[in-house]
Protein backbone atom coordinates (compact mmCIF):
# COMPACT_ATOMS: atom_id res chain seq x y z
CA UNK A 1 0.00 0.00 0.00
CA UNK A 2 2.92 2.29 0.43
CA UNK A 3 5.26 3.22 -2.36
CA UNK A 4 8.79 4.34 -1.73
CA UNK A 5 10.15 6.37 -4.57
CA UNK A 6 13.82 7.12 -4.35
CA UNK A 7 14.88 10.63 -5.16
CA UNK A 8 18.34 11.86 -5.88
CA UNK A 9 20.94 10.75 -3.38
CA UNK A 10 22.64 13.69 -1.65
CA UNK A 11 26.22 14.18 -2.79
CA UNK A 12 27.54 14.27 0.76
CA UNK A 13 26.07 10.91 1.78
CA UNK A 14 29.47 9.30 1.94
CA UNK A 15 30.44 11.70 4.73
CA UNK A 16 29.09 9.30 7.34
CA UNK A 17 31.57 6.65 6.30
CA UNK A 18 34.41 8.96 7.23
CA UNK A 19 32.93 10.59 10.30
CA UNK A 20 30.77 7.97 11.94
CA UNK A 21 28.37 8.66 14.78
CA UNK A 22 28.37 10.17 17.32
CA UNK A 23 30.61 13.04 16.49
CA UNK A 24 31.30 14.12 20.06
CA UNK A 25 31.82 10.64 21.38
CA UNK A 26 29.32 10.78 24.21
CA UNK A 27 25.73 9.82 24.79
CA UNK A 28 24.73 6.19 24.69
CA UNK A 29 24.90 5.89 20.94
CA UNK A 30 27.63 3.46 20.19
CA UNK A 31 28.72 2.10 16.87
CA UNK A 32 27.86 3.48 13.52
CA UNK A 33 24.22 3.48 12.61
CA UNK A 34 23.74 2.31 9.05
CA UNK A 35 20.02 2.16 8.53
CA UNK A 36 16.58 1.99 10.01
CA UNK A 37 14.78 -1.01 8.62
CA UNK A 38 11.01 -1.30 8.89
CA UNK A 39 9.33 -4.61 8.00
CA UNK A 40 5.61 -5.33 7.67
CA UNK A 41 4.66 -2.64 10.17
CA UNK A 42 0.99 -2.44 11.14
CA UNK A 43 -0.51 0.20 13.37
CA UNK A 44 -3.96 0.03 14.93
CA UNK A 45 -5.47 2.92 16.86
CA UNK A 46 -8.85 2.64 18.50
CA UNK A 47 -10.10 -0.37 16.46
CA UNK A 48 -9.00 1.29 13.22
CA UNK A 49 -6.11 0.02 11.12
CA UNK A 50 -4.08 3.10 10.17
CA UNK A 51 -1.59 1.28 7.99
CA UNK A 52 -0.80 -2.34 7.31
CA UNK A 53 2.38 -4.17 6.23
CA UNK A 54 4.42 -1.05 5.77
CA UNK A 55 7.98 -1.86 4.67
CA UNK A 56 10.69 0.69 4.06
CA UNK A 57 14.29 1.45 4.87
CA UNK A 58 16.13 4.70 5.56
CA UNK A 59 19.91 4.71 5.27
CA UNK A 60 22.16 6.87 7.38
CA UNK A 61 22.62 10.27 5.80
CA UNK A 62 19.19 10.24 4.18
CA UNK A 63 15.92 12.06 4.68
CA UNK A 64 12.55 10.36 4.40
CA UNK A 65 9.49 12.54 4.10
CA UNK A 66 6.18 11.00 5.09
CA UNK A 67 3.32 12.35 3.05
CA UNK A 68 -0.38 11.79 2.86
CA UNK A 69 -3.71 13.38 3.81
CA UNK A 70 -4.68 14.33 7.38
CA UNK A 71 -5.48 11.41 9.65
CA UNK A 72 -3.69 8.85 7.53
CA UNK A 73 -1.31 7.95 10.35
CA UNK A 74 1.83 10.01 9.79
CA UNK A 75 2.08 11.11 13.40
CA UNK A 76 1.22 7.62 14.64
CA UNK A 77 3.94 6.13 12.43
CA UNK A 78 6.44 8.56 13.94
CA UNK A 79 5.30 7.62 17.45
CA UNK A 80 5.67 3.93 16.64
CA UNK A 81 9.14 4.55 15.19
CA UNK A 82 10.10 6.44 18.36
CA UNK A 83 8.92 3.57 20.51
CA UNK A 84 6.24 5.74 22.15
CA UNK A 85 3.42 3.64 20.66
CA UNK A 86 3.54 -0.14 20.33
CA UNK A 87 3.20 -1.56 16.82
CA UNK A 88 0.37 -4.03 16.27
CA UNK A 89 2.67 -6.13 14.08
CA UNK A 90 5.98 -5.90 12.30
CA UNK A 91 9.54 -5.06 13.26
CA UNK A 92 11.66 -1.95 13.31
CA UNK A 93 15.38 -2.64 13.33
CA UNK A 94 18.35 -0.33 13.73
CA UNK A 95 21.17 -1.77 11.69
CA UNK A 96 24.74 -0.95 12.63
CA UNK A 97 27.48 -3.20 11.34
CA UNK A 98 26.32 -6.76 11.71
CA UNK A 99 23.96 -6.06 14.60
CA UNK A 100 20.29 -5.27 14.42
CA UNK A 101 18.50 -3.76 17.39
CA UNK A 102 14.78 -4.34 17.46
CA UNK A 103 13.86 -3.40 21.02
CA UNK A 104 11.60 -0.34 21.28
CA UNK A 105 13.25 0.88 24.49
CA UNK A 106 16.70 0.76 22.90
CA UNK A 107 15.36 2.64 19.90
CA UNK A 108 13.81 5.28 22.12
CA UNK A 109 17.32 6.09 23.36
CA UNK A 110 18.46 6.96 19.83
CA UNK A 111 15.61 9.23 18.84
CA UNK A 112 15.32 13.01 18.89
CA UNK A 113 11.67 13.98 18.81
CA UNK A 114 9.87 17.03 17.47
CA UNK A 115 6.10 16.74 17.91
CA UNK A 116 3.23 19.17 17.39
CA UNK A 117 3.60 20.41 20.95
CA UNK A 118 6.62 22.53 21.63
CA UNK A 119 7.36 21.49 25.24
CA UNK A 120 8.28 25.11 25.98
CA UNK A 121 7.34 25.75 29.61
CA UNK A 122 5.96 29.30 29.87
CA UNK A 123 7.84 29.91 33.14
CA UNK A 124 11.25 28.91 31.75
CA UNK A 125 13.50 30.74 29.31
CA UNK A 126 14.72 29.15 26.05
CA UNK A 127 18.16 28.77 27.58
CA UNK A 128 16.71 26.96 30.61
CA UNK A 129 14.59 24.70 28.41
CA UNK A 130 17.60 23.67 26.32
CA UNK A 131 19.95 23.14 29.24
CA UNK A 132 17.27 21.04 30.94
CA UNK A 133 17.02 18.75 27.92
CA UNK A 134 20.80 18.60 27.52
CA UNK A 135 21.15 17.50 31.15
CA UNK A 136 18.17 15.13 30.93
CA UNK A 137 19.66 13.42 27.87
CA UNK A 138 23.15 13.46 29.38
CA UNK A 139 24.83 15.56 26.69
CA UNK A 140 27.22 18.46 27.05
CA UNK A 141 25.91 20.29 24.01
CA UNK A 142 26.73 23.94 23.42
CA UNK A 143 23.46 25.68 24.35
CA UNK A 144 24.52 29.08 23.01
CA UNK A 145 25.47 27.59 19.64
CA UNK A 146 22.12 25.81 19.41
CA UNK A 147 20.24 29.02 20.27
CA UNK A 148 22.26 30.97 17.71
CA UNK A 149 21.66 28.31 15.03
CA UNK A 150 17.91 28.97 15.18
CA UNK A 151 18.16 32.72 15.70
CA UNK A 152 17.01 32.79 19.32
CA UNK A 153 20.24 34.15 20.82
CA UNK A 154 18.71 37.57 21.50
CA UNK A 155 15.72 36.26 23.42
CA UNK A 156 17.52 33.40 25.14
CA UNK A 157 16.65 34.79 28.58
CA UNK A 158 13.06 35.83 27.92
CA UNK A 159 10.39 33.58 29.45
CA UNK A 160 8.84 31.23 26.87
CA UNK A 161 5.41 32.64 27.75
CA UNK A 162 6.33 35.63 25.55
CA UNK A 163 7.48 33.60 22.53
CA UNK A 164 5.42 33.35 19.36
CA UNK A 165 4.44 30.01 17.83
CA UNK A 166 7.25 30.31 15.31
CA UNK A 167 9.81 31.10 18.00
CA UNK A 168 8.69 28.09 20.03
CA UNK A 169 9.11 25.95 16.92
CA UNK A 170 12.62 27.31 16.53
CA UNK A 171 13.29 26.36 20.14
CA UNK A 172 12.07 22.83 19.40
CA UNK A 173 14.48 22.69 16.44
CA UNK A 174 17.36 23.82 18.65
CA UNK A 175 16.43 21.02 21.05
CA UNK A 176 17.08 18.46 18.28
CA UNK A 177 20.65 19.68 18.11
CA UNK A 178 21.08 19.67 21.87
CA UNK A 179 19.93 16.09 22.57
CA UNK A 180 22.50 14.64 20.13
CA UNK A 181 20.59 11.64 18.86
CA UNK A 182 21.16 9.96 15.48
CA UNK A 183 17.53 9.57 14.40
CA UNK A 184 15.41 12.69 14.08
CA UNK A 185 11.65 12.16 13.97
CA UNK A 186 9.92 15.38 12.98
CA UNK A 187 6.20 16.02 12.91
CA UNK A 188 5.48 19.05 10.72
CA UNK A 189 8.87 20.66 11.34
CA UNK A 190 8.18 23.66 9.12
CA UNK A 191 4.75 24.69 10.39
CA UNK A 192 4.50 28.28 11.68
CA UNK A 193 8.10 29.05 10.67
CA UNK A 194 8.98 32.15 8.63
CA UNK A 195 11.51 32.16 5.79
CA UNK A 196 14.51 32.52 8.08
CA UNK A 197 13.15 29.85 10.40
CA UNK A 198 12.73 27.44 7.50
CA UNK A 199 16.24 28.10 6.37
CA UNK A 200 17.53 27.42 9.89
CA UNK A 201 15.52 24.17 9.97
CA UNK A 202 16.94 23.06 6.62
CA UNK A 203 20.47 23.92 7.70
CA UNK A 204 20.04 21.79 10.82
CA UNK A 205 18.63 18.89 8.79
CA UNK A 206 21.41 19.15 6.23
CA UNK A 207 24.11 19.23 8.89
CA UNK A 208 22.53 16.23 10.60
CA UNK A 209 22.43 14.04 7.50
CA UNK A 210 25.88 15.17 6.48
CA UNK A 211 27.18 13.61 9.69
CA UNK A 212 25.37 10.36 9.03
CA UNK A 213 22.13 11.01 10.87
CA UNK A 214 18.68 9.86 9.78
CA UNK A 215 15.77 12.27 9.40
CA UNK A 216 12.17 11.14 9.06
CA UNK A 217 9.71 14.00 8.71
CA UNK A 218 5.94 14.06 8.35
CA UNK A 219 5.15 17.03 6.19
CA UNK A 220 2.58 18.59 3.89
CA UNK A 221 5.06 20.75 2.04
CA UNK A 222 8.37 20.00 0.35
CA UNK A 223 11.17 19.99 2.90
CA UNK A 224 13.59 21.59 0.48
CA UNK A 225 16.26 18.93 0.87
CA UNK A 226 16.85 15.87 -1.27
CA UNK A 227 14.65 13.22 0.29
CA UNK A 228 12.93 9.96 -0.36
CA UNK A 229 9.16 10.06 -0.13
CA UNK A 230 6.75 7.66 1.48
CA UNK A 231 3.10 8.20 0.61
CA UNK A 232 0.83 6.87 3.32
CA UNK A 233 -2.65 5.76 2.38
CA UNK A 234 -1.91 6.16 -1.33
CA UNK A 235 -2.96 2.72 -2.51
CA UNK A 236 -5.29 1.83 0.34
Amino acid sequence: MAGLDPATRPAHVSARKRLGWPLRGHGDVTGQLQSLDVQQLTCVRGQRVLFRDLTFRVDAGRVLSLEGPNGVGKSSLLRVLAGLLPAAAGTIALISGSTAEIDADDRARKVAWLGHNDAAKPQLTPREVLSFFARLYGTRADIDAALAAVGLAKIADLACAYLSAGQKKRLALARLKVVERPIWLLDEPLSSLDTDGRKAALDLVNAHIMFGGIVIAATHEPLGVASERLMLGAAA
Partner: protein
Amino acid sequence: MIGALLSRDIRLATRAGGSAALALAFFAAVATLVPLGVGVDLRLLLRVAAGVLWVAAVLAALLSLDRLFQADFEDGSLDLIALSPLSLETVAAAKIAAHWLTTGLPLTLLSPVLGVMFGLPPGAIGVLTLSLAIGTPAVSALGAIGAALTMSIRRGGLILPLLVLPLLAPAVIFGAGAVQAALDGLSSGALLFLAAFAVATTLLSPFAAGAAVRLNLAG
Protein backbone atom coordinates in the same frame (compact mmCIF):
# COMPACT_ATOMS: atom_id res chain seq x y z
CA MET B 1 19.82 13.24 34.42
CA ILE B 2 17.49 12.61 37.34
CA GLY B 3 18.88 15.78 38.89
CA ALA B 4 17.89 17.72 35.77
CA LEU B 5 14.25 16.64 36.11
CA LEU B 6 14.22 17.19 39.87
CA SER B 7 15.64 20.70 39.66
CA ARG B 8 13.38 21.66 36.75
CA ASP B 9 10.25 20.51 38.59
CA ILE B 10 11.30 22.35 41.74
CA ARG B 11 11.97 25.47 39.68
CA LEU B 12 8.57 25.24 37.95
CA ALA B 13 6.79 24.78 41.29
CA THR B 14 8.55 27.64 43.06
CA ARG B 15 8.57 30.21 40.27
CA ALA B 16 5.78 32.80 40.00
CA GLY B 17 2.50 31.00 39.30
CA GLY B 18 3.92 27.76 40.66
CA SER B 19 2.06 25.35 42.89
CA ALA B 20 4.25 25.50 46.01
CA ALA B 21 3.05 28.85 47.35
CA LEU B 22 -0.53 27.98 46.42
CA ALA B 23 -0.50 24.77 48.48
CA LEU B 24 1.01 26.58 51.45
CA ALA B 25 -1.56 29.38 51.28
CA PHE B 26 -4.40 26.86 50.98
CA PHE B 27 -3.13 24.96 54.03
CA ALA B 28 -2.90 28.14 56.10
CA ALA B 29 -6.31 29.39 54.90
CA VAL B 30 -8.16 26.16 55.79
CA ALA B 31 -6.42 25.90 59.16
CA THR B 32 -7.38 29.50 59.93
CA LEU B 33 -10.96 29.13 58.76
CA VAL B 34 -11.82 26.11 60.90
CA PRO B 35 -11.48 27.91 64.28
CA LEU B 36 -13.71 30.65 62.89
CA GLY B 37 -16.36 28.05 62.13
CA VAL B 38 -15.94 25.93 65.26
CA GLY B 39 -15.89 28.86 67.65
CA VAL B 40 -13.67 29.83 70.55
CA ASP B 41 -14.03 26.70 72.67
CA LEU B 42 -10.32 26.08 73.25
CA ARG B 43 -10.80 22.53 74.50
CA LEU B 44 -12.78 21.61 71.41
CA LEU B 45 -10.16 23.21 69.14
CA LEU B 46 -7.45 21.24 70.89
CA ARG B 47 -9.31 17.99 70.19
CA VAL B 48 -9.85 18.69 66.49
CA ALA B 49 -6.48 20.37 65.80
CA ALA B 50 -4.54 17.32 64.66
CA GLY B 51 -7.35 16.03 62.45
CA VAL B 52 -7.98 19.41 60.87
CA LEU B 53 -4.30 20.08 60.20
CA TRP B 54 -3.76 16.62 58.73
CA VAL B 55 -6.81 16.85 56.45
CA ALA B 56 -5.86 20.38 55.39
CA ALA B 57 -2.31 19.22 54.60
CA VAL B 58 -3.55 16.30 52.51
CA LEU B 59 -5.98 18.50 50.57
CA ALA B 60 -3.34 21.18 50.04
CA ALA B 61 -0.92 18.59 48.66
CA LEU B 62 -3.61 17.13 46.39
CA LEU B 63 -4.33 20.59 45.01
CA SER B 64 -1.11 20.61 43.01
CA LEU B 65 -0.91 16.88 42.30
CA ASP B 66 -3.27 16.75 39.33
CA ARG B 67 -0.78 18.68 37.18
CA LEU B 68 2.15 16.47 38.18
CA PHE B 69 2.17 14.59 34.88
CA GLN B 70 -0.66 16.34 33.05
CA ALA B 71 1.24 19.59 32.41
CA ASP B 72 4.12 17.68 30.80
CA PHE B 73 1.70 15.40 28.94
CA GLU B 74 -0.21 18.31 27.41
CA ASP B 75 2.75 20.36 26.21
CA GLY B 76 4.66 17.39 24.77
CA SER B 77 7.40 17.41 27.42
CA LEU B 78 6.42 13.94 28.60
CA ASP B 79 7.16 12.42 25.16
CA LEU B 80 10.63 13.92 25.33
CA ILE B 81 11.12 12.81 28.91
CA ALA B 82 10.01 9.28 27.94
CA LEU B 83 12.68 9.22 25.19
CA SER B 84 15.41 10.30 27.62
CA PRO B 85 17.76 7.77 29.22
CA LEU B 86 15.62 7.76 32.39
CA SER B 87 13.09 4.98 32.92
CA LEU B 88 9.52 6.09 33.56
CA GLU B 89 9.81 4.68 37.08
CA THR B 90 12.78 6.96 37.73
CA VAL B 91 10.85 9.86 36.21
CA ALA B 92 7.97 9.15 38.59
CA ALA B 93 10.34 8.95 41.56
CA ALA B 94 11.92 12.29 40.61
CA LYS B 95 8.51 13.92 40.27
CA ILE B 96 7.36 12.53 43.63
CA ALA B 97 10.54 13.86 45.25
CA ALA B 98 10.11 17.28 43.65
CA HIS B 99 6.47 17.41 44.72
CA TRP B 100 7.32 16.53 48.30
CA LEU B 101 10.14 19.07 48.46
CA THR B 102 7.86 21.86 47.18
CA THR B 103 4.65 20.98 49.07
CA GLY B 104 5.04 18.30 51.76
CA LEU B 105 8.18 19.80 53.27
CA PRO B 106 6.93 23.44 53.39
CA LEU B 107 3.60 22.24 54.85
CA THR B 108 5.47 20.34 57.54
CA LEU B 109 7.59 23.39 58.35
CA LEU B 110 4.52 25.64 58.59
CA SER B 111 2.53 23.21 60.75
CA PRO B 112 4.10 24.20 64.16
CA VAL B 113 2.88 27.77 63.63
CA LEU B 114 -0.65 26.57 62.93
CA GLY B 115 -0.38 24.14 65.84
CA VAL B 116 0.26 27.09 68.16
CA MET B 117 -2.83 28.81 66.75
CA PHE B 118 -4.89 25.78 67.83
CA GLY B 119 -3.35 25.93 71.29
CA LEU B 120 -1.45 22.64 71.04
CA PRO B 121 1.15 22.14 73.77
CA PRO B 122 4.81 21.96 72.63
CA GLY B 123 5.03 18.18 72.97
CA ALA B 124 1.99 17.63 70.74
CA ILE B 125 3.31 20.17 68.21
CA GLY B 126 6.51 18.16 68.01
CA VAL B 127 4.55 14.97 67.33
CA LEU B 128 2.37 16.77 64.77
CA THR B 129 5.40 18.07 62.88
CA LEU B 130 7.09 14.70 63.04
CA SER B 131 3.95 12.91 61.82
CA LEU B 132 3.66 15.29 58.86
CA ALA B 133 7.34 14.89 58.05
CA ILE B 134 6.90 11.11 58.02
CA GLY B 135 3.48 11.01 56.37
CA THR B 136 3.57 13.65 53.62
CA PRO B 137 5.94 11.62 51.37
CA ALA B 138 3.17 9.00 51.26
CA VAL B 139 0.72 11.71 50.13
CA SER B 140 3.02 12.73 47.26
CA ALA B 141 3.74 9.10 46.34
CA LEU B 142 0.16 7.81 46.32
CA GLY B 143 -1.00 11.03 44.72
CA ALA B 144 1.47 10.47 41.90
CA ILE B 145 -0.25 7.19 41.00
CA GLY B 146 -3.57 9.00 40.74
CA ALA B 147 -1.96 11.84 38.77
CA ALA B 148 -0.41 9.37 36.33
CA LEU B 149 -3.69 7.52 35.85
CA THR B 150 -5.72 10.67 35.24
CA MET B 151 -3.22 12.71 33.21
CA SER B 152 -4.99 12.20 29.88
CA ILE B 153 -8.44 13.02 31.27
CA ARG B 154 -9.48 16.61 30.74
CA ARG B 155 -11.05 17.09 34.16
CA GLY B 156 -8.68 14.62 35.79
CA GLY B 157 -8.19 16.98 38.72
CA LEU B 158 -11.72 16.22 39.88
CA ILE B 159 -11.30 12.45 39.74
CA LEU B 160 -7.87 12.41 41.35
CA PRO B 161 -9.07 13.11 44.93
CA LEU B 162 -11.71 10.39 44.61
CA LEU B 163 -9.01 7.91 43.64
CA VAL B 164 -6.40 8.99 46.12
CA LEU B 165 -8.21 10.15 49.28
CA PRO B 166 -9.39 6.66 50.31
CA LEU B 167 -5.83 5.39 49.94
CA LEU B 168 -4.60 8.18 52.17
CA ALA B 169 -6.98 7.33 55.03
CA PRO B 170 -4.30 5.33 56.93
CA ALA B 171 -1.93 8.32 56.86
CA VAL B 172 -4.58 10.62 58.31
CA ILE B 173 -5.66 8.05 60.92
CA PHE B 174 -2.14 7.31 62.16
CA GLY B 175 -0.87 10.88 61.80
CA ALA B 176 -3.73 12.51 63.68
CA GLY B 177 -3.88 9.53 66.07
CA ALA B 178 -0.26 10.02 67.11
CA VAL B 179 -0.97 13.65 68.05
CA GLN B 180 -4.14 12.66 69.88
CA ALA B 181 -2.24 10.06 71.91
CA ALA B 182 0.43 12.62 72.78
CA LEU B 183 -2.29 15.01 74.01
CA ASP B 184 -3.72 12.27 76.21
CA GLY B 185 -0.28 11.42 77.51
CA LEU B 186 -0.49 7.91 76.12
CA SER B 187 2.19 6.06 74.26
CA SER B 188 1.10 4.75 70.89
CA GLY B 189 2.61 2.95 67.96
CA ALA B 190 0.86 5.29 65.53
CA LEU B 191 4.04 6.98 64.34
CA LEU B 192 5.63 3.60 63.65
CA PHE B 193 2.60 2.47 61.66
CA LEU B 194 2.68 5.78 59.79
CA ALA B 195 6.36 5.30 59.03
CA ALA B 196 5.77 1.76 57.75
CA PHE B 197 2.92 3.00 55.57
CA ALA B 198 5.04 5.87 54.22
CA VAL B 199 8.05 3.68 53.45
CA ALA B 200 5.95 1.05 51.66
CA THR B 201 3.99 3.54 49.55
CA THR B 202 7.00 5.70 48.71
CA LEU B 203 9.01 2.70 47.55
CA LEU B 204 6.24 1.06 45.54
CA SER B 205 4.43 4.07 44.05
CA PRO B 206 7.07 4.99 41.45
CA PHE B 207 6.53 1.59 39.82
CA ALA B 208 2.77 1.97 39.71
CA ALA B 209 2.98 5.58 38.54
CA GLY B 210 5.58 4.69 35.89
CA ALA B 211 3.36 1.90 34.57
CA ALA B 212 0.37 4.26 34.46
CA VAL B 213 2.39 6.85 32.51
CA ARG B 214 3.46 4.16 30.03
CA LEU B 215 -0.16 3.10 29.60
CA ASN B 216 -1.31 6.67 28.96
CA LEU B 217 1.50 7.47 26.50
CA ALA B 218 0.66 4.38 24.43
CA GLY B 219 -3.09 5.02 24.58
